[in-house]
């Protein structure tokens, strides 16, 4: 069993950056706009980036479950996204 797992780990090792995430970029910045449908993150020196908020979007405050109402303009967030066509969907929004 261990040998099998090791072989799979070695085989998949080079792919590992792709495995833990949902297929889109991580948006790291401060909240510029947040609504029930969308969050826009302002990156310092970069373009604002938006992601759709869906019923599946998870809000994580520290190590606990949070909610959208926790967030306001100016809060630091990291948004894990996945691509949906040309748009991004927020899988998880993390904040302190």
């Amino acid at each position, binding site marked *: 069993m261990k040998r099998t797992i090791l072989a799979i780990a070695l085989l998949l090792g080079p792919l590992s950056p792709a*495995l833990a995430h949902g297929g*889109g970029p991580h948006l790291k910045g401060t909240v510029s706009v947040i609504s029930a449908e969308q969050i826009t993150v302002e990156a*310092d020196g970069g373009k604002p980036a938006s992601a759709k908020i869906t019923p599946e979007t998870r809000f994580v405050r520290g190590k606990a479950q949070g909610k959208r109402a926790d967030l306001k303009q100016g809060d630091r*967030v*990291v948004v894990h996204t996945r691509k949906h066509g040309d748009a991004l969907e927020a899988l998880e929004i993390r904040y302190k």
Partner: protein
Amino acid sequence: MKTAAIVLLVVAVGLAAGTAALLLRGGIGARVEPTPIEKAVARSLRRLLIEGSARGLQNPLPNTPEVVHTGLAHFADHCSMCHANDGSGQTAMGPNFHPRTPDLRSSDTQGLTDGELLYIIEQGVRFTGMPAWGDGSEESRQASWALVRFIRHLPALTTAERLEMESMNPKSREEREEEKAEERFLEGKGEDRAKRSGGGHHH
């Protein structure tokens, strides 16, 4: 008699051609969405083809927090890359399998018996991405039964449990460094410049 045989032959060839066209529409690629008929047939076949003696097996491990946690740790290390820590199948690879990686929290999976779940873990499922994890040893079987306990727990998985699993997921050095950078950013330490950190995560 001869006419009937010809009609039967034509119908059989037509059915075979129709099935082939349905299965191979869009070529051999995995991007094409499985039709509802394909999904229904595949699910029914999966149940039918699991050996009857396996279906009725009872989980010998008690439903305790310790056993569930053993399954949680094993799942995070071996299963999450396709199934996701929460069992949703929403990973970089999950939605690109054909058939798609199932949501383990759904009734389609939760409706399987413990024995059927064990069989799928140990024996795998042909023509899908599900490998056979069992090696015939008692150690492997016990690990699989703990996974069955954890799969039953998935619909009630907490945020804290999911975050604990993230710390157990196989990760590259790059990913661990990015996690630390994100944590520092959220704490307002170290990195002051906010940014879109997508470079290594476009898949």
